[in-house]
């Protein structure tokens, strides 16, 4: 359909208006992190007078940012790795070996997809108390792994069903056992599924605030999102530090997104509809 200049104009105006709406708050956050507290107070919208990293140095010193970052990396890395490892094995098993309980096991995993884990927080907290895991990073890792498994199993199950068995069978005839077939032959063809599951879990775990809020008491064991609560509690009038803290927190994801925006968008949207 031919479009009049007016229609084209309306389209682009709408798009640029919303681009402004979505990007300006993030831009403002980054720009303000270079200002002094006084500058933010007197002229919140202007660009910084000079580009200094003083706020970053100070925020790094006043709260345990290096601990927060390390904890976040450790928890996300372990959780994503364990989810990928155990779910790919389970998905492979369910798609390749048919026993009479396969249907039951798929249903068993499906319950977890349907019900939000946050609402089971009281028994989960008591369980972690009994296991002496409260106020340890392992409480978070076990929670995220358990929460990530159902979705991951379904994605892997779906993918494995599309991989022809002939490949594996010929490998078996060549003398590979089940585990070798799995690691040498099957896993390498699974890259799309791995990236979907990996990204969905990484974004969820890295950004989660709820479970650290419940499980972590010690400041040095905080993840980045929980560390933000500490920062905002103690330095609520020093906005230069707050903006710097928020920027450090979001920068890793923003940079990762700039490099792999398509993978992120495809991964996260398929996470919602499958």
């Amino acid at each position, binding site marked *: 359909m031919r*479009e009049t200049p007016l*229609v084209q104009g309306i*389209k682009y105006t*709408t*798009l640029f208006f*919303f*681009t402004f709406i*979505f*990007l300006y708050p*993030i831009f*403002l*956050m980054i720009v303000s992190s270079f200002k002094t507290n006084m500058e*933010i107070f007197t002229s*919140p*919208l202007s660009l910084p007078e000079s580009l200094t990293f003083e706020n970053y140095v100070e925020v790094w010193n006043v709260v345990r940012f290096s601990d927060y970052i390390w904890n976040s990396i450790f928890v996300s890395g372990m959780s994503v790795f364990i989810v990928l490892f*155990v*779910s790919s094995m*389970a998905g492979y*098993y369910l798609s390749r070996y048919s026993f009479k309980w396969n249907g039951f096991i798929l249903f*068993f995993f499906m*319950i*977890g997809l*349907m*019900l*939000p*884990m*946050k*609402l*089971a927080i*009281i*028994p*989960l*907290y008591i*369980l972690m108390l009994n296991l002496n895991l409260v106020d340890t990073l392992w409480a978070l890792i076990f929670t995220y*792994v*358990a929460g990530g*498994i*159902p979705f991951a*199993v379904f994605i892997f199950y779906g993918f494995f069903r599309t991989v022809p*068995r002939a490949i594996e069978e010929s490998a078996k005839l060549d003398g590979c056992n*089940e585990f070798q077939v799995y690691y040498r032959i099957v896993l390498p063809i699974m890259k799309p599924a791995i990236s979907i599951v990996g990204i969905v879990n990484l974004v969820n775990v890295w*950004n*989660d*605030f*709820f479970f650290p*809020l419940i499980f972590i008491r010690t400041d040095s064991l905080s993840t980045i999102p929980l560390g*933000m*609560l500490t920062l*905002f509690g103690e330095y609520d009038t020093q*906005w230069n530090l707050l903006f710097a803290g*928020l920027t450090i*927190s*979001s920068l890793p994801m*923003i940079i990762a*997104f700039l490099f792999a*925006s*398509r993978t*992120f968008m495809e991964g996260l*949207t398929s996470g919602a*509809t499958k």
Partner: protein
Amino acid sequence: METEMKVNRNTTAKTVKKKKKGKYKKHLVHLFLLPAVLLYGVFQLFPLITAALNSFYSWNGFTRDSFVGVDNFITLFTQDPYRQFFFNAFQHNWIYFFVTVLTQLVIAFILAVIIYGSVKGKAFFKAAFFLPKLLSVIVIGFLFSLILNPTRGALNTLLETIGLGMLARPWLGSTDTALYSIIFVDSWASIGFTMLIFLAGLQAIDSEVFEAARIDGANRFVLTTRIMLPLMLPSVMVMSVLTFISSFEAFEYVFAMQGSSGGPYYSTDVLAVFFYRLAFGTVDGGQAVGVGSALAVVLFFIIAVATSIILLYFKRKDFDR
């Protein structure tokens, strides 16, 4: 088929020893499933089931006391202040849902239709709209609590700069605007995501349908409302149910911007925040794990009903194929 083949191989094997080894290996295969079942069973399914049972007991702190039947539910629905808190928050969850559908889904739909058409820079716009989704909810909440600050915040300053100073107000500090401000912040973060879902829905429609309508002389408005919208109804419905679920799980934005009491004066209190206070804070002078567990069951029920609608829908779609 798999097992058949293995049986064949085993029977052709010459020694009994080899047969035994084959059988042993076959059982080893179950190890593939075990870690996932154990981790998920212990840390998710077991807590989920226990959560339901817990609501029928009285509690002393985090220690389960005695069986009390449905007393916790009766307390939640009939006894003040629990009753007041529950219905106040319940109402806010519904507002949360309706306003989110109106803002988020409508804007996302319009943006999806525009990007589906002929525009340059599709990749850029998609990425720009999606970017907020990658930030932590708590970071977004805190960022907007600064932006919406009545005296120092960027929004009120911006309004004054462009001559709309009369619109400036304490967005998060007034009971009239606080809940809506939070819902808009939530929408800000999620529109790009919803738009991508709608765009995928549009791209799945056979473009010949649009061609045919154009040849029949349908104008742009008719094309969008009479052709696109009905064909997009599945995606719209799925997103509505997902929005419903997220509205009844809403917690972080309220917690980040208004704290655990859903201030000012409980005007932004929602069920998940009330649940948090019952379990980990104080309501009516003490912790109330029993009533909290009852509330969790009520929320489970609401969300399970919504989820089964989605599942039923997808099952029917599979059946139609």
